């Protein structure tokens, strides 16, 4: 957020801060400092006031002190020398009779994050460990962790480590937990704090005293402890039993995690623990906050991998509410699929059927594929629902249904008759490439049973020139080959045309190679072709009969109550996005090159003066304005933008520096149609970003050529797009 008039504000604030009248009036002084902080949070650079603020630090007023510390901690890294002045005041504050002042000083001393000040900080920190007030000790303990983090290579004194160990017996529970945290960080190299029997028992006995956050921490660290005997193990378990059904989900989850790690050798006990947490877990699934519901669902999915029957009776808890966000609905459906059995299958399918017409297309498609999954065991009922959905003639629903049927038929070949009947006529509603690929596959494999298969294929083959999706083309080739084998009379002519097109005209190498392969295969004779295309496949239906083996608990126990279960789904979705993007991109490029084979060139070069003259001369040029959404572009460096543009032969002439508003770039290029007689046009462009969502592109052209302009714009967007994605990636690093 840039802020205009920043310099004036800073000057005014400095005058006020150094005014003796203000300094003597506590309330006015405090208000001035408040203004400084406000300016800071609005993005004004107030680092120039550092020395004035250091002076303001020496006060008895706690409110003022706190405000000044907020300022100092943000700017200390920029002024390491001046920060030395603060240290003096801070060290004095560490002797203050008020424990609040002492803890405040100590905390901010460690928050300055300046390695050069370390030597001054150690002494007050050591004193802080022995302070009377608990709140000072809390800060001091964590202070050592911060110090270690600042200079990870320097050794922390063994005496300090010993003192921290002894502070585990501190009467204040927060000090105790902070000690655990600090030791974990300081001793990271050695594998964290040493957990032995006395420490374990001490921690367990005091578990109840600490707050929920502390309990989680203690339970997590105790996972490393291995009890020496079975008796001891059961003592620990019975101590923990109450927290297993704690009303706080975070404590419950942490306890279960500890249970699982302690009982890794006793599967029966782990099972009993899982049974016991069923109630609290289900409660978390119905909690008011959606994030918690989501987390609980993810963890339940984990449990179901070992105990598919755990939630069987409670399947109704996983029915979706109307207003729930899509991510929860999708998780709930995944759980529902796991819970299906003979008793509830009717109810479950009815429910899932309702979700198929959800407004959100992702949810609808997830529901359809869930029905497909259930179809592996209850194929008749599911196929009935799926066929019914086709009657809706909705684009996204039909596509999902056809894909689901394809997957279903692969595992349950006995369904093929019903599927083939249902397929008739749905090619008209199918639009997206995924759905059409599925349809083509089905036609290829069950071509004999679908009477209209050759006619459907013919429509595809006639339209192959305008087909953009690579996958559809490949699938089309295979399907036509397969159909040729079983219905040669009807297909021969089509196959010839398709092969001819793919070998002679198709720009994509992959499709061309595939077509050549089939062509040569046909030369080897029909038996050979049959052997290759209709050979035996593995039999996946065996897997359905046997069912998925339930995993042992130890497989996932270590990832329970971490981020991992939440990630699993999102990683999957991410990869599908990137995959679909990849195919789209590869499909887009040849398409645009077919439509407008456009080449850009930089010569003849244009001088800035010439550019300016042409730009301002409005009548001669044809101009056009576009809006593109690239809010991050103005943050990238001029060099990278220029380099990226030059790669595609666009010359940038002038820039405003990054992060200023309005941000502008001027550029030019010459376009030329390949193949035709040389038909060159000059394009001048301006990118303008005024702080809104969009980037405004103004293009001027001489002479007018709409096709070239469009082609240029698509090239420009592609370049900007790659730049933004790289930039985002870079920022995220």
């Amino acid at each position: 957020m840039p802020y205009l008039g920043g310099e004036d504000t800073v000057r005014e604030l400095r005058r006020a801060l150094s005014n003796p009248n203000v300094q003597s009036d506590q309330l006015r002084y405090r208000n001035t400092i408040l203004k400084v902080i406000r300016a800071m949070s609005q993005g004004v650079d107030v680092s120039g006031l550092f020395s004035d603020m250091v002076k303001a630090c020496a006060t008895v007023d706690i409110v003022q002190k706190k405000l000044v510390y907020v300022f100092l901690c943000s700017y200390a890294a920029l002024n390491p020398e001046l920060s030395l002045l603060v240290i003096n005041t801070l060290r004095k504050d560490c002797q203050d009779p008020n424990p609040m002042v002492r803890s405040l000083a100590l905390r901010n001393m460690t928050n300055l994050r300046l390695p050069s000040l370390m030597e001054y900080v150690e002494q007050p920190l050591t004193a802080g460990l022995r302070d009377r007030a608990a709140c000072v000790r809390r800060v001091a303990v964590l202070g050592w962790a911060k110090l270690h983090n600042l200079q990870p290579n320097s050794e922390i004194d063994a005496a300090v480590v010993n003192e921290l160990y002894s502070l585990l017996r501190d009467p204040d529970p927060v000090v105790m937990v902070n000690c655990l945290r600090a030791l974990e960080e300081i001793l990271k190299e050695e594998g964290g704090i040493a957990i032995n029997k006395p420490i374990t028992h001490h921690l367990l006995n005091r578990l109840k005293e600490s707050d929920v956050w502390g309990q989680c921490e203690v339970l997590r660290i105790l996972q490393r402890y291995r009890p020496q005997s079975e008796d001891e193990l059961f003592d620990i378990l019975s101590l923990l039993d109450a927290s297993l059904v704690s009303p706080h989900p975070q404590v419950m989850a942490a306890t279960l995690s500890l249970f699982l790690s302690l009982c890794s050798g006793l599967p029966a006990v782990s099972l009993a623990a899982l049974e016991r947490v069923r109630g609290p877990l289900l409660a978390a699934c119905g909690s008011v906050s959606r994030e918690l519901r989501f987390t609980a669902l993810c963890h339940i999915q984990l449990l179901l991998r070992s105990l598919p029957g755990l939630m069987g009776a409670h399947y109704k808890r996983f029915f979706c509410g109307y207003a729930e966000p899509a991510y929860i609905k999708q998780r709930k459906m995944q759980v529902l699929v796991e819970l299906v059995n003979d008793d509830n299958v009717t109810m479950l399918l009815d429910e899932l059927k309702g979700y198929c017409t959800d407004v959100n297309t992702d949810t609808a498609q997830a529901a359809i594929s869930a029905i497909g999954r259930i179809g592996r065991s209850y194929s008749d009922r599911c196929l009935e629902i799926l066929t019914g959905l086709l009657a809706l003639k909705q684009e996204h629903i039909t596509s999902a249904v056809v894909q689901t049927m394809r997957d279903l038929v692969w595992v349950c070949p006995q369904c093929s008759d019903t599927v083939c009947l249902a397929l008739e006529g749905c090619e008209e509603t199918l639009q997206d490439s995924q759905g059409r690929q599925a349809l083509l596959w089905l036609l290829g494999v069950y071509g004999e049973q679908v009477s209209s298969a050759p006619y459907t294929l013919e429509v595809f083959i006639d339209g192959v020139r305008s087909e953009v999706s690579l996958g559809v083309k490949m699938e089309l080739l295979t399907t036509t080959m397969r159909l040729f084998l079983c219905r040669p009379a009807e297909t021969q002519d089509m196959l010839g045309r398709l092969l001819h097109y793919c070998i002679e005209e198709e720009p994509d190498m992959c499709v061309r190679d595939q077509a050549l392969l089939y062509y040569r295969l046909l030369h080897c004779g029909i038996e050979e072709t049959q052997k290759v295309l209709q050979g035996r496949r593995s039999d996946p239906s065996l897997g359905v009969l046997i069912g998925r083996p339930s995993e042992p608990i130890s497989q996932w126990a270590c990832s329970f109550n971490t981020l991992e279960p939440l990630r699993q789904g999102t990683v999957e979705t991410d990869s599908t996005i990137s995959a679909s993007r990849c195919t789209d991109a590869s499909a887009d490029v040849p398409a645009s090159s077919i439509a407008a084979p456009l080449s850009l060139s930089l010569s003849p070069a244009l001088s800035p003066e010439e550019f300016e003259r042409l730009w301002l001369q409005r009548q001669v040029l044809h101009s056009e304005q576009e809006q593109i959404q690239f809010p991050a572009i103005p943050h990238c460096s001029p060099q990278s933008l220029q380099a990226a543009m030059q790669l595609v032969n666009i010359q940038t002439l002038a820039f405003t520096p990054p992060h200023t508003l309005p941000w502008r770039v001027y550029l030019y290029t010459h376009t030329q149609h390949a193949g035709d007689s040389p038909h060159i046009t000059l394009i001048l462009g301006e990118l303008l970003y005024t702080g809104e969502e969009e980037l405004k592109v103004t293009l001027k052209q001489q002479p007018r050529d709409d096709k070239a302009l469009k082609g240029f714009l698509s090239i420009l967007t592609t370049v900007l797009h790659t730049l933004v994605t790289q930039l985002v990636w870079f920022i995220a690093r």
Partner: protein
Amino acid sequence: MIGGLFIYNHKGEVLISRVYRDDIGRNAVDAFRVNVIHARQQVRSPVTNIARTSFFHVKRSNIWLAAVTKQNVNATMVFEFLYKMCDVMSAYFGKISEENVKNNFVLIYELLDEILDFGYPQNSETGALKTFITQQGIKSQHHTKEEQSQITSQVTGQIGWRREGIKYRRNELFLDVLESVNLLMSPQGQVLSAHVSGRVVMKSYLSGMPECKFGMNDKIVIDKQGKGGSSEDGGKSGKQSIAIDDCTFHQCVRLSKFDSERSISFIPPDGDYELMRYRTTKDIILPFRVIPLVREVGRTKLEVKVVIKSNFKSSLLAQKIEVRIPTPLNTSGVQLICMKGKAKYKASENAIVWKIKRMAGMKESQISAEIELLPTNDKKKWARPPISMNFEVPFAPSGLKVRYLKVFEPKLNYSDHDVIKWVRYIGRSGIYETRC
């Protein structure tokens, strides 16, 4: 542990940013904005991973709160922490809105400093925090003149939520049982899911340091007493006891006593506070039943008949009843006939809203509507959203009853009888939906 905490407005502008650990770079703030707030699709998950950094976010009205971490942390804990943070902030300045956050940014920085240190939660109880926080919350509507909490040197007192030396001429105690009943019913009248989430909210004006004891018809307690042989009202309350699925308490309640004897005893804070929260799923009294009848007459007409039945004692009155019947998007006109209350078709909300001011128990009322539809070539089937209901009833749908509320103050000379006590039950509708 949490590496940093950011607060954004709905446009993605950063209102508050506090980084606790060095492994979180300054760019993290922008990465979340670009990838989540400005993303074109809907939110895919409350946890987003960008370049090995995890962002946990929670939305409150139009404010985004995001916690950032590089470690493989306990997800439940981070979310619970964010909720707690929201609770603390709203305790100080009311609703979490952009205006309030901007007005209270110094306070928020101060809170963030106290609640987290180096990314570890330290102290998150509003009462205990009061001693450390110097700023006062600025509420946007009305500025409550709370007395400046004195900064005492006694920092870790035993009772952080009540100060000494409170005096009232009249000792009064108000207790409200507020419940919200949630229902999802199938068109055939089958209960798909139902639960009650309830709160016991108290307002106490008591002198000194009183010790209170609160009793209700909790099944476990009553069963225990029944076994013990005390049969004062065992027979009567035995069947009326309720099973509580889970409950949480205000920090003033002695949990050890609850765990061992399941009795709720506490020294109350002064003024308003929430004593406990609970949830029940068994034997819920559903105050209303909605019976929908939808008939599609041809392609351009829809007949809807909805009957509501009140299912409680006829001496009680339900209030503010509102039934919301969704209509298809291509509705052109609606004719309504209802015997009771007022009904109106609201085109902007795509619903028929039927309001009844008061309705006694064991009554029945119905509305019938003829909906005319515009012929469309959109073949999309109407999704039929559920019929939802709002109401307020003067009893607790979970069946919870307050059995006693005793006050003991040994030092000052007033007894349990001198305290004026008020008990009130209010049952409201949460998400009360019937599919049609």
